[in-house]
């Protein structure tokens, strides 16, 4: 089959590889009908995630048709049309019992690697480094899905692939980011990063009762989408001083909740950005965090900073003093997918939201290497790429 493989920093290619096989009793094989590139895949392209190996198949946003099921998988049948969540969960451990699906104890075959870096291992992920399980990803014609009786969700026929696909990651991720803000009616929510997760965080903040949503980015097309589709007030951080603008918009109070939908490769215009950039370039730090610093600084006293943006290693100059003395709540983590998939698919089915609004590029899997660069460099007004194998 064809698959997008990682061969090193800035080097991803389409390769011909063997088809996947059932390896464990609860597995299923899915024939991919639509897949996407996630903003977090760019961290892999840029070499920010450790424990990648030459030849790893990437991709964790995908859906398709079940073509084979393992002997212990009783919930799926050949022919089912499913969306697969990017986190892999056994459904039976301490963490799955408590709905903390992305912290599943049993789905990462390389848990010892993550334990060395984090103390404990999160769940396995598709196509996201060996530390996260080393599972072959979904930017391919076929994928082996472990514990397929827990994750994949069946899609009703009236929902198109483009409408359903983002249940695999970014819609639930944006939703959990907003849910983590514990929004009270009328709250102001400020969101750094108007990529796809930011766009869904905006939509979700409204769903959860926000009174006002402020979106921060510098790409005009992303701010336009946040304003047109998201009905958000927008701030271009290259044109305004973000803290002052947020103070003015909230009467000096600050936003009740702030969402960092940017993560560890943040861009900024202040001196701290260039400091981070120099340090990460010299391998003295692993993550950059201009957006997170601003979010902590701008958040109102007693407010919440929610972090859906991915961080991988150690972070420098985090203003913990501001967070502490303002009594902030910080919430973060990979999305607990299975909490959100069914209710959000229900909203799509009822016509409350059509997630396909984020798609700007519809391509073939063969175009993936170029699409990675277009998306990373934010060329051609690229916000979200979907690909058919």
């Amino acid at each position, binding site marked *: 089959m064809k698959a997008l493989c990682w061969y090193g920093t800035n080097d991803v290619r389409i390769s011909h590889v063997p088809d*996947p096989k059932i390896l464990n009793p609860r597995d299923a094989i899915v024939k991919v009908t639509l897949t996407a590139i996630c903003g977090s895949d760019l961290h892999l392209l840029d070499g920010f995630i450790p424990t990648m190996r030459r*030849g790893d198949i990437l991709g964790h946003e995908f859906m398709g048709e079940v073509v084979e099921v393992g002997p212990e998988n009783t919930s799926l049948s050949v022919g089912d049309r499913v969306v697969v969540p990017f986190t892999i969960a056994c459904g*039976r451990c301490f963490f799955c019992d408590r709905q903390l699906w992305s912290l599943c104890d049993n*789905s990462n075959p390389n848990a*010892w690697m993550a334990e060395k870096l984090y103390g404990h291992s999160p769940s396995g992920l598709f196509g996201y480094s060996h530390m996260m399980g080393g599972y072959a990803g979904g930017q391919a014609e076929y994928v082996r899905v*472990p514990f397929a009786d827990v994750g994949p969700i069946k899609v009703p026929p009236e929902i198109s692939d483009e409408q359903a696909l983002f249940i695999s990651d970014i819609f639930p991720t944006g939703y959990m980011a907003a849910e983590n803000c514990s929004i009270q009616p009328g709250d102001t929510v400020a969101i750094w990063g108007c990529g796809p997760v930011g766009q869904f965080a905006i939509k979700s903040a409204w769903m959860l009762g926000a009174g006002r949503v402020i979106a921060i980015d510098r790409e005009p097309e992303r701010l336009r989408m946040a304003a047109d589709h998201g009905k958000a007030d927008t701030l271009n951080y290259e044109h305004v001083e973000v803290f002052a603008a947020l103070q003015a918009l909230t009467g000096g109070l600050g936003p009740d909740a702030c969402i960092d939908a940017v993560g560890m490769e943040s861009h900024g215009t202040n001196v701290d950005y260039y400091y981070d950039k120099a340090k990460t370039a010299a391998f003295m730090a692993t993550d950059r965090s201009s957006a997170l610093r601003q979010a902590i600084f701008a958040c109102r006293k007693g407010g919440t900073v929610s972090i859906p943006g991915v961080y991988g290693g150690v972070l420098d100059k985090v203003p913990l003093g501001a967070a502490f003395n303002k009594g902030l709540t910080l919430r973060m983590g990979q999305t607990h997918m299975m909490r959100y998939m069914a209710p959000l698919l229900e909203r799509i089915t009822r016509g409350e939201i059509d997630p396909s609004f984020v798609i700007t590029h519809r391509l073939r899997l063969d175009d993936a290497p170029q699409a990675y660069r277009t998306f990373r460099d934010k060329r051609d007004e690229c916000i979200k790429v979907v690909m058919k194998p």
Partner: protein
Amino acid sequence: MADLELEFPGDPQEARVRSGQNLSDVERWVSIAAGAGLALYAVTRWKKSGWLIAGLGGMLVERGSTGHCRMYEAVGLNTAGTGEDTRHALGGLRGAHVEESVTINRPIEELYRFWRNLENLPQFMRHLQSVERITDTVSRWRAKGPAGAILEWNAEIINEVPNKVIGWRSIEGSDVVSAGSVNFDDAGPGRGTRVRVRLQYSPPGGKAGAALARLVGRDAGTEIREDLRRFKQLLESGEVPSTDGQPRG
């Protein structure tokens, strides 16, 4: 020990282990008698040096009445005859020692039953090739040694308290000298079972013993930790997660 308050009805040996005793009953009584004698002697002589002797006597009495000797503990000696501490089973500190634990989201009874059927062990202990039951307490173990060598030995269960502890050791005269025990404890409501394993491989038991100790030796802790992780994965999720055999570029 922290678990001092726990009750272990009907099993004096287990209770002894739990209480931290490392002295046999005979040694305890001798200790109490000698200590009391020393103290009496010192007090009746009423000299300066008497205080030292009285203090020593007091320590002996304490040692005897609690059954716990701090000096024995420091040097790893144990005369209490408990099956949990594998150091006793092999009579000292030789070889590789490992203690690891894991919490498993399944009932004690299920985990105990699975482990007690020793033939199941190779399903999650990577270096074991097979365990074959000979009698209810004696079994034949085969392990993969370095350079493809096969190591074989017989082991017997020397301590068994249903749903609490299983202790085993290699039978006298085996090439491989090893001992181990596994304890099962309730981890609290909704938290499953805490499983604690102690293992010892002793090189002086012959060539094969040395080879096995080398095999598990330096990273014995890592090896057992990964074995226990597989035990947990298998019992909780029904399979051990793997990517062996998946495609790559």
